[in-house]
Structure formats: C-alpha cells, structure tokens
C-alpha cells in the first residue's frame, strides 16, 4: 500500500495528477489512496515533500473463489522459438480445464510474437493473449511480471501454470507474491477436484518424500511444472480459438534492469528428448564397461544416460545425468545397468514407458521401478545383448 504522511502533505495534488491509475484523490483536506492503486510508485517520485511511502503490506486475505475460472498457461519463448515445455503445460492445462468444464487460455509475452500465437492456437487453447512490445523482446522481470499481472487481473483464472525453467522459476514467485496467492514448485502430478480446486504433488527433501499441496482459499492457484514430466498437447484447433492483444501502459514496461547482451548456449545433445535410453550406474566399474553400455545404446538407436556418481568421477558429461540434480527423462524404453535405484534417480524416470533393470543384487530398490527386472551380472548380460543385436 501507498501510505500518505498527512503531516508532511501540503495538498499540492501533484500526485493526483501523475497517477496513471487515477488511484489518488483529494477528499476534503486529505489525499486518499483508492483500490485501483497498482503500486507503480510514480507518485513517490513526484511528491515534493516525500510524504508518500510504500508500506510492505500484508497478504490480501482470502479471495472470493467464485470470481475465478479457467486455466491460464504462461508460454515460454525466447526470440521466435517456443520452448517445448509450453506444449506440455498446454496439454496439462487442457486436461484440467476440461475436467473443470472451464476455458483454457495462454499468454505469450515478447516482441513480434504473432506467429507464435497462431501456432499455439493449433493446440487446443480457447484464447491466446498476446503482450507484444519491443521492451519485452528480452526477459526482464518487472515488465514481464506486470504483463502477467495484467492478464491475471483481466481474466481471473482459477489456475495458472508456468514452466519450472529458470525463467518460469523467477517469474512465478514474483507473480504469486504480487497477487498474494499460493505457488507450488516443480509439480509432478496435477489434478482438479470439486470443480477447479488444484491438487498438486511435488517431490520434497530431494525426492525422498512426496507432498500433496493445495491452495484452499486463494486464487489463482499457481504451479510450476518441470520439462518432460507431463504429456505434450495434441494438435486440435478449438472452433472459436483466437488471439487477443493486451495493452500495457508505458510505466508498466519500465525496468531497472537492462539486458546488455544475450548469448545463446550451444544446444547440447539432450537425453530429455531420447526415445530409448540405456543408463549406466556405479555397477559399471570401468570406462571400458561404460563404452560397452554406450555401444548397447547405439545399437538400439538410443542414447547413453548415467547416474550422478559417473558424472562425479568424470566418466560422463553432466548433460547425460538422469535424476533430480540432472535431467528428467520420458523415454519409451529405459534399460538401467548397475543402478541401485536411489530416489533421486527414480524420481526422474517416472515418465518412462517401459523400464528394464539389470542388477546383480535382487534386493536392489531399482526393481521396484522396473517392469522387467533381470537379476544378473551386467558384464555377462550386456555383451550377450550386443552380440544378439549385431546379428539382427
């Protein structure tokens, strides 16, 4: 809240004039702040007496749940490309919206984004909101948050889904705080009950336990989702799907941060997208044995994945690490060789369709996550598999 120090205020009314939201008014011998105040702080800069200040305020108490409806997906784009996690957010958003019997919208923030918006309309969204300004060409926290706030206030969604990417993880808490509502990070399961009450499940304590979290009295309910955890949306165009443009005021586009330079990281070969993965763990005792597992992966037309210890001892690149501190994978086939099945590993393979585990210890926890458990020595099984595949 903006606070007026009435003993300093000379009633010059400069603030009333500069407020872009007409939120300041003179009432008799007092300046009062109205509900339309958006805390843009322009008045603070203009007050000659320093009579205005910003109070770090209180949580807006409970929201009227009936005012909110629908699912909003925040698209993640950089330049003219859409991050594929966006399609997963839309896929999940569509499912939740259908169950609740409500609408699915998405918002695209950036510059020259018309093509992206048209493209997203083909994936089952009812409405795509475009916030398109040159000032938004690069991700800057303040104007991006303003854009998200604007669309949230306009459509009052019940649920907002964002990507658990670095950008999503920096914007989501900013938006949740501005709206004074709940946010749950890195959800692995999202469902609705009683209409659009969002039930969120996420790993806690590094995956050792799962927590089920709800936001009973505040709206919208915000959640972030990691890439590759949910199914991507299918192509379908809703009959009245269309793009709507959203305007921001000049001061909503301002920022105290300037992106001086942006360098794309070289695209790394990613196991996140692999359909077949053969993964090696510490049961693979030498680099020669690792080469053997890599050969099996190549013969199957797949990629090599590893557990963290193999990255730590320098045998494999970090980009191949599967797990909570590595990548989440969703292959059609995953074969694990000499992997014990620590939760930090298994938490990131739940999307694998078929899991085959090779381990010499029949009590290894990995077998609980495997459809086919092969109790045996990988140094015998893997060479035999390679021989067999070479014959095919």
């Amino acid at each position, binding site marked *: 809240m903006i606070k007026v120090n009435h003993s300093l205020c000379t009633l010059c009314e400069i603030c009333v004039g500069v407020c872009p939201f007409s939120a300041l008014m003179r009432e008799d011998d007092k300046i009062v702040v109205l509900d339309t105040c958006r805390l843009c702080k322009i008045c603070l800069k203009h007050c000659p007496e320093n009579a205005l200040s910003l109070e770090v305020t209180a949580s807006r108490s409970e929201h009227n749940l009936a005012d909110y409806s629908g699912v909003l997906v925040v698209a993640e784009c950089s330049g003219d490309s859409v991050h594929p996690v966006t399609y997963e957010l839309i896929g999940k958003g569509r499912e939740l919206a259908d169950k609740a019997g409500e609408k699915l919208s998405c918002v695209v923030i950036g510059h020259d984004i018309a093509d992206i918006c048209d493209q997203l309309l083909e994936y089952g969204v009812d409405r795509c909101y475009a916030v398109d300004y040159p000032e938004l060409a690069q991700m800057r926290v303040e104007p991006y948050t303003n854009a998200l706030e604007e669309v949230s206030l306009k459509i009052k969604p019940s649920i907002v889904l964002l990507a658990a990417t670095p950008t999503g993880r920096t914007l989501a808490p900013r938006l*949740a705080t501005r709206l004074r509502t709940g946010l749950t990070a890195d959800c692995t399961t999202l469902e609705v009950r009683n209409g659009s009450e969002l039930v969120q499940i996420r790993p*806690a304590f590094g995956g050792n336990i799962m927590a089920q979290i709800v936001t009973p009295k505040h709206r919208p309910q915000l959640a972030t989702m990691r890439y590759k955890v949910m199914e991507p949306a299918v192509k379908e165009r809703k009959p009245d799907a269309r793009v709507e443009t959203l305007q921001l005021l000049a001061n909503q586009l301002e920022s105290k941060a300037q*992106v001086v330079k*942006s360098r794309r990281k070289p695209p790394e070969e990613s196991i996140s997208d692999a359909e077949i993965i053969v993964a090696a763990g510490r049961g693979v005792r030498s680099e020669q044995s690792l080469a053997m597992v890599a050969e099996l992966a190549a013969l199957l037309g797949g990629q090599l994945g590893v557990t963290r210890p193999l990255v730590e001892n320098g045998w494999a690149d970090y980009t191949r690490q599967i797990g909570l501190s590595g990548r989440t994978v969703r292959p059609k086939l995953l074969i694990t060789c000499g992997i014990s099945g620590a939760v930090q590993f298994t938490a990131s393979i739940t999307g694998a369709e078929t899991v085959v585990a090779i381990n010499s210890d029949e009590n290894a926890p990995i077998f609980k996550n495997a459809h086919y458990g092969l109790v045996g020595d990988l140094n015998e099984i893997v060479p035999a598999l390679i021989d067999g595949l070479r014959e095919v």
Partner: protein
Amino acid sequence: MHIVVCIKQVPETRDVAVDEETGVLLRDGVKSIMNPFDLYALEAALRLKEERGGSVSVISMGPPQAEAVIREAYMMGADRGYLLTDRAFAGADTLATAFTLAQGIDKIGEADLIVCGLQTTDGDTAQVGPGIAEMLRIPHESNVIAITGVTDSGLRLERDSGDSLDTVDVAFPCLITVTKAIGEPRLLSFRRKLETADYPVVYWSLGDLGENEDSLYGLKGSPTQVERIFSPPTQSDQEMWRGSGSELAQRLLSKLSDLRFVGGMRHD
C-alpha cells in the same frame, strides 16, 4: 554499500522417510547446517564488501537454534546478524516466509543489495528470493552466475536463463539469487571465531516488526497447505527374471522385439 544476505538453517541430510501408517515425517537427530547455496550468497556479498567497502548484514527466520548459522556467517566475515524468531512465524510457506523476511529487511533499513542463495536444500523451490524482491518492490535477478561489475548505482551481472547466458545491468536497490558458479565460499576463520564470539545477534519477534497482524505470518499467512506426505510410488506390475547371463539376454531380446524396439522401429 550495505548488503543484506538471507540465510537459512537446513537439515544436513535429505534422507528422510515417511511413516506409512501415520503419514508423519521421520527425521530423527539429523544435524543442521547453513543451506549450502547461502554460503555462496554470503561469499558473493563479502567479495563486494572487500572491493567497495561497506557492511554485510545477515538475516534468518527460524527457531532460536538458527543462531548457529548467524554465528557461522560472523566467522566468514559478516558484520551484523538478525534472527526473526517467533512461534507465529512457524509453518510459513514461501509467501509468508518472503513477507516475514521482507519485514525484517525493511526494519534493518538502507539495503542497497540483498543476496539470497538460489534455493534451499529442504524446500528446493527458489521462490523466497523473488518473493522478497516483490514484497519490497525492487528489481531482482535469479540464477546469477557472476558479478562482473559494480558501481555506486548498480551491478553488472551474468545470469543463466537456461537457453541463454545474459549480461544484465541492474540498479540498486535490488535483489539477486546466486548459483554455486558465483565462487567458492571461504572457510571459517578461527581468528574470526575468537573475534566474533561476543558479537551480539539481534532477535526480533512479531512485536518488533512493522506489521504486527499475526494472521499474515506463519501457517495462517500461508496460502498453500500441505495436505499429506507419502513415499514415492513404485511400479506394481513387474516381472523378475533369473538365469544365466546369456539366457537373460535372449529373453530380453525377444521381449524387445515383441515390443518392437528391435527388428523394425516402433512408430507411434
């Protein structure tokens, strides 16, 4: 320059389990440490202080035992420490935590820069830093991997945005969250330990903060609620195969060919 660093005491290990019957978290006698990312945040602040002068304050919300992490920060070089401790703060989610810390930072006053670790090892959300910045209505940058310049008016830094590395200029006052790339934290100094043994730690409770309404803090001030905790699910329809290496390999090859993973790729 005045820098405030937010630090948190966390359990040393994440090896916790759930009692399947009662749904209660089993966490016996685990040691507590400073959240690893916060060591890097403090290191970044201390380096800026060495370069530009000024002072470094640390602030934490937690039970009285959390004084230990403030003492640790003193041993690394922090000048002042504040502990926000009150029963009313317990059970806070990230919003209520950000609110409480923002109240504390507001009361300390005059911070040019606030530094947080990227995330904590017990929460893993990375939400509190940006939340504090929003409460204070100042800019923030997350995932900062290097500070490459500092002037009287702001910082030049490198942030990791996932697909790109960005050079960003941001004006004071601002908040940053740092990754481990920012630079190895220094070791605790024994000399500093002796020197700082009688440094006071400032304790603040609800009544000391600008906003005293207790429904804004802790569990009551938290929009999110944990309904239940449980062990990660396991695979139910599984087969265990035993036999010699070549038998197992043969059996797997024929299964993979049934599933059309070999002998003609699967297309679906």
